[in-house]
């Protein structure tokens, strides 16, 4: 035993005798020390408390003493009294596992478990102590980032989680406490006085732990609450970023540029400094850290979802995610990133989760009380159907049909004329239909079965109704839709619409309301670098890759060089990113992937140049209006 070794080296006869104490004698000794406090004699008690404070660079004999004391204390927990032994309890609960070796960790955790099980009063404190050990102390953060730090991290965390499971085994009701403690202890998003790097890493580790609880043995009791806590944290960070603020100053730059380069690169890159107003650069620097944190947390969540999918439990996790989405994200004002968690979960299981998500959104749209909820539900649905590469055309067609039917039913009951405010739910439905068709019309028209399905849809009575959705919906979408519909002989209108390149109209502003739900396209390209590249991009439909009904046969030569420039620029920018960002292999692979994407995108580019003529730099912005400066 460690004790014997240590004392033998000391070579003191007196202590050699101590060695002969058996475990139970030690326990008795500690019990006596604890009892004697109440009678006024607290010398040995104070010695005991002193031992608990040994933490810096312990010599082997000190380690042995600490382990022995902790073990003896575990045997004497029933004698610990929260009034008389306050200082002892405080020092035990203040101990950080990260400071000690495995022996001390094990002994300490044994004591914590024993304490929790001995008396209901200590359960909360014990859980709190364990949860606070989710995060390493500040000074260890740098060490932990190195490879050998990983081993330490695993050493601590695996023990903490086992201890939590043990406590829940002994005290089933502790599970409900645990989730409250975890949520309560969640690191708050930002404190400026702390070193950001530290804080970020600690938050990441904390979330990692939450997800570990979600997949651990006690997930049955705490899992759903944990997942919701993560989604809430993501939403909180998302809201803190205030993307619109950054873009407001950016009107000169044009949205297209932002779609090409990754937006955060604009912020990072010193060379771009000249182009950006000084204030913006300062402002976005602070916010960028939140975006980086959000990005890493999203990646953690994605990885977790992947592991759930591998363990065949994505279904149960998805239920919770969906609930949580409906509760928080759906009603968050212009949530920008958090919704991609749903997107990725759907991508992992398109048949079940992907379909379920769309169905739930459609249900919420067609039968909910709150018009704002309905409109944001249909905005999510439209954006999802348009952007999700993994959805089958058949499903897109059937969901469209459902939307069209709802709109038709609505029209039939309405006799009044155009009124953007009163019929805003209807207009948002119509806009959703057109938006989805902008992205999907060509692919649907290519298959005879879906073509006939589309042609049979009662689009005409809806769009030509007295309520006049074509005038009210976003002109950019209507224009694109009419162009494609005409080319596909799906729908024509005798009326000519002159939009003069307007992104929005007064009518659309009206029906969008204060929340500007007319301009809300939640699944526009994800601007978080890591999440986008590794996870979202392969499942995502970009506008520049969409084949339009009118563009496919076009053989344009005049704009070919522009298109090439476009390819070159895009390629280059991503190469640059690879260099500046990190030399990670993953990034290099992604660059290749970028090139591949560019090669694939010949057709859409034709379409795109055709449509925009000389103004090609503006066009994509129109179809993704939600990030435009005017959207405020």
């Amino acid at each position: 035993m460690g004790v014997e070794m240590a004392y033998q080296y000391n070579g003191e006869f007196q202590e050699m005798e101590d060695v002969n104490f058996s475990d139970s004698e030690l326990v008795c000794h500690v019990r006596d020390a604890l009892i004697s406090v109440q009678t006024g004699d607290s010398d040995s008690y104070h010695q005991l408390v002193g031992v608990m404070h040994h933490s810096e660079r312990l010599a082997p004999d000190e380690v042995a003493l600490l382990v022995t004391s902790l073990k003896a204390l575990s045997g004497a927990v029933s004698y610990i009294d929260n009034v008389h032994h306050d200082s002892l309890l405080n020092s035990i609960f203040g101990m950080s596992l990260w400071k000690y070796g495995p022996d001390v960790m094990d002994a300490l955790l044994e004591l914590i478990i024993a304490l929790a099980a001995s008396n209901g009063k200590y359960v909360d404190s014990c859980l709190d102590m364990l949860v606070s050990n989710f995060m390493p102390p500040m000074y260890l953060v740098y060490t932990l980032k190195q490879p050998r730090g990983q081993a330490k991290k695993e050493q601590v965390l695996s023990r903490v989680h086992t201890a939590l499971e043990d406590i829940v085994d002994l005290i089933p009701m502790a599970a409900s406490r645990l989730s409250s403690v975890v949520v309560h202890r969640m690191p708050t998003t930002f404190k400026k006085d702390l070193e950001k790097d530290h804080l970020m890493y600690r938050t990441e580790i904390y979330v990692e732990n939450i997800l570990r609880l979600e997949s651990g043995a006690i997930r049955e009791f705490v899992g759903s609450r944990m997942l919701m806590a993560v989604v809430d944290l993501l939403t909180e960070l998302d809201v803190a970023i205030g993307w619109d603020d950054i873009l407001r100053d950016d009107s000169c730059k044009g949205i297209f540029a932002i779609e090409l380069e990754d937006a955060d690169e604009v912020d990072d890159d010193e060379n771009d400094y000249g182009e950006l107003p000084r204030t913006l650069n300062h402002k976005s620097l602070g916010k960028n850290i939140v975006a980086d944190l959000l990005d890493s947390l999203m990646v953690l969540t994605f990885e977790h979802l992947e592991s759930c999918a591998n363990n065949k439990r994505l279904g149960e996790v998805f239920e919770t995610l969906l609930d949580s989405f409906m509760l928080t994200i759906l009603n968050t004002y212009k949530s920008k990133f958090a919704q991609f968690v749903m997107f990725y979960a759907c991508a992992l299981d398109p048949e079940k989760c992907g379909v379920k998500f769309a169905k739930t959104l459609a249900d919420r749209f067609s039968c909910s009380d709150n018009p704002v909820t309905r409109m944001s539900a249909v905005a999510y649905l439209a954006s999802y159907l348009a952007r999700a590469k993994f959805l089958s055309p058949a499903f897109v067609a059937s969901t469209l049909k459902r939307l069209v039917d709802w709109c038709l039913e609505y029209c039939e009951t309405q006799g009044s004329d155009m009124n953007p405010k009163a019929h805003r739910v209807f207009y948002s439905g119509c806009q959703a239909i057109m938006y989805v068709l902008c992205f999907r019309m060509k692919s649907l028209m290519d298959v005879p079965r879906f073509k006939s399905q589309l042609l049979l849809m009662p689009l005409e009575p809806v769009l030509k109704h007295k309520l006049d959705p074509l005038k009210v919906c976003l002109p950019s979408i209507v224009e694109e839709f009419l162009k494609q519909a005409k080319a596909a002989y799906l729908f024509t209108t005798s009326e000519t619409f002159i939009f003069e390149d307007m992104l929005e109209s007064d009518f659309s502003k009206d029906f969008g309301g204060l929340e500007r739900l007319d301009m809300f396209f939640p699944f526009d390209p994800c601007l978080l670098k890591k999440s986008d590249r590794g996870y979202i991009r392969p499942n995502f439909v970009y506008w520049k890759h969409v084949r339009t009904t009118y563009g496919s046969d076009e053989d344009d030569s005049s704009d070919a060089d522009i298109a090439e420039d476009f390819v070159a620029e895009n390629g280059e920018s991503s190469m640059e990113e690879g260099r500046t960002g990190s030399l990670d292999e993953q990034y290099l692979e992604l660059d290749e992937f970028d090139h591949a994407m560019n090669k694939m995108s010949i057709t859409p580019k034709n379409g795109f140049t055709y449509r925009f003529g000389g103004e090609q730099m503006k066009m994509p912005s129109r179809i993704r209006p939600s990030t435009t400066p005017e959207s405020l």
Partner: protein
Amino acid sequence: MEGLSVSDANLVVYIHPSQSKNVSQAILRELSSLLFKYNETFDGVVLAYAVNSLDKQARILSGVHPYFGVRLKANLLLFSPKPNMLLEGKVVKLMRESIHVIVLGFSSAVIVDEDIRDEFKYKSKRGEAKYVSRSHKRHAIKVGTTIRFSVKSLDEEILHISGSLIPAHTGSVSWLDGDGGNPTTESSKKRKQPDGETEVQELGIAGGDTCSVNNDQKIKKSKKRRNAE
């Protein structure tokens, strides 16, 4: 096992106006929020409820929040352990210093070594720890044994019971109900005992009228079974 009772409660449930569309669901949700929590009004933990009759009339509360109150009658199954009551639970961890027990699957109980009567001796063989009676070698408590113990105190917040094995009629349930009553006929009954026990427990939870499941009744019951054989 004592501590379980069914009570008829007249309740008024206050419902938020936003729930007015689906009142019955809101009532159930409200009642469910009582479950597995100690409630001072009932002086116990609500384990189950059944709504019997619902008043068709609701009363709107005056005041800032226009909640409305719905009267209803419900049967509540309550778990209210009181000092000196006898409870039964399954041992989940056993050490020299303490025995940890889970009662009814949710409430935890601990019996520390001073509360274990001297009759029991701690033994640890090949990693398996147990408390064995000095007078009856077959009377042993180890992990997995269902034991009967008396209540010392209850921490209402986390439903943590402090128990005791001092009274003579406490210990392993299978031994108390079997061999303890009649030491001559051992082996044949041992197998049957668990059945009898679960039956009684189910009765305690599901049965409407029994106020508490008495030990004596249970022992009688098992004796009857024995006699029938």
